[in-house]
């Protein structure tokens, strides 16, 4: 459920953020995330930025691999 899209924040203003995914831009709500800044990566769902993420890709998975596998 809940298709998520990781995207880069390119603009912030007053509760909304413009996010960019491969050049496709759209305004989403940033009301659930404090302190967003242009350049941050967020997970977007249904027009709302629901989580700040450390990177747009899944490179962190490497650490998990090392830790558990």
């Amino acid at each position, binding site marked *: 459920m809940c*298709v998520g899209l990781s995207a880069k924040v390119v603009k912030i203003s007053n509760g909304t953020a413009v996010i960019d*995914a*491969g050049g*496709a*831009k*759209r305004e989403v709500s940033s009301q659930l995330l404090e302190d967003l800044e242009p350049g941050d990566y967020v997970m977007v*769902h249904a027009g709302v930025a629901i989580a700040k993420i450390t990177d747009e890709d899944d490179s962190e998975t490497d650490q998990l691999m090392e830790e558990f596998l």
Partner: protein
Amino acid sequence: MENKTVTMAHGAGGKQTSELIDQVFKAHFANADLTADDAAVLTPPVGRMAVSTDGFIVSPAFFPGGNIGKLSICGTVNDLACMGAKPLYLTCAFVIEEGFPMEKLEEIASAMEKTAKEAGVHIVSGDTKVAGKGQVDGVFITTTGIGEIQDGVTVGGELAKPGDAIIVTGDIGRHGCTILLEREDFGIEADVTSDCAPLWGTVKAVMDTTHNLHVIRDATRGGVGTVLYEIAGQSNVGIRLNAAAVPVQPEVKGVCGMLGLEPLYLACEGRLVIMAPKEEAEDIVETLRKCPYSAEAAIIGEVIADEPGRVVMETEIGTQALLPQPGGELLPRIC
């Protein structure tokens, strides 16, 4: 035109119908074969003749990269080209909503003129109906084309053979993505324009490179994915697609990511899927890359004997999975 809009009187068959035809359509379409009579009188094609028809109801009628007029020529010219036929003659029938701006109609006619010229096709006969306000949305155009099948090449959806390379002539899904962004108010901004283009020149160039071709198909409604499934079915072969090799503009990918859509199922209006024996593939791609509308041509897969009727893709993890079959209406999804 004295009138700023199309009125019911323009469709009544009297003086004003003639005025509209003369001042808008004849003004743009004039050529030696165009008729004002009930039917055009023409020299038939030599050899075998290809005939194709398509209705165009795109909404909005104007979009980045073209309009319904350009589209209505490209669609039919490309269908002829896909049979290896040189487009000779074309008819067009308009259904126009009462109140449609005359200026827009002129713009449409002008795009048709330009595109027909580029494709080398003569518009020979037309028809104009005016529908009452609300009876039709803007303007619909139906074109029918007649082409002369070129000697020495036989292509068809049933002729794909295991071992064929599958080539796509450029990045996919731009037309569908453009229309989606224009039509529904999804609030997405992306620099995407329709790939709409007349492709007889492209097909001709490929046919001049080799006669050893099996399938040429324009990936319109339903996109490349639908075409692949169609051909897999018609030729009773499997298709192995290298998903990573399919050219997709990043913006199109981004839009698809947001809306949960598969680019392989977005319409193109200027892209061909070509299947030909593997040994011809490199030459064909090289030729295509020199043509104006296929600089990004790529080999995206091959025809296989296994899995007849199916399209399998290699996945990121090295497994194989089916491409989901073409479904119904494209519906942006949230889950």
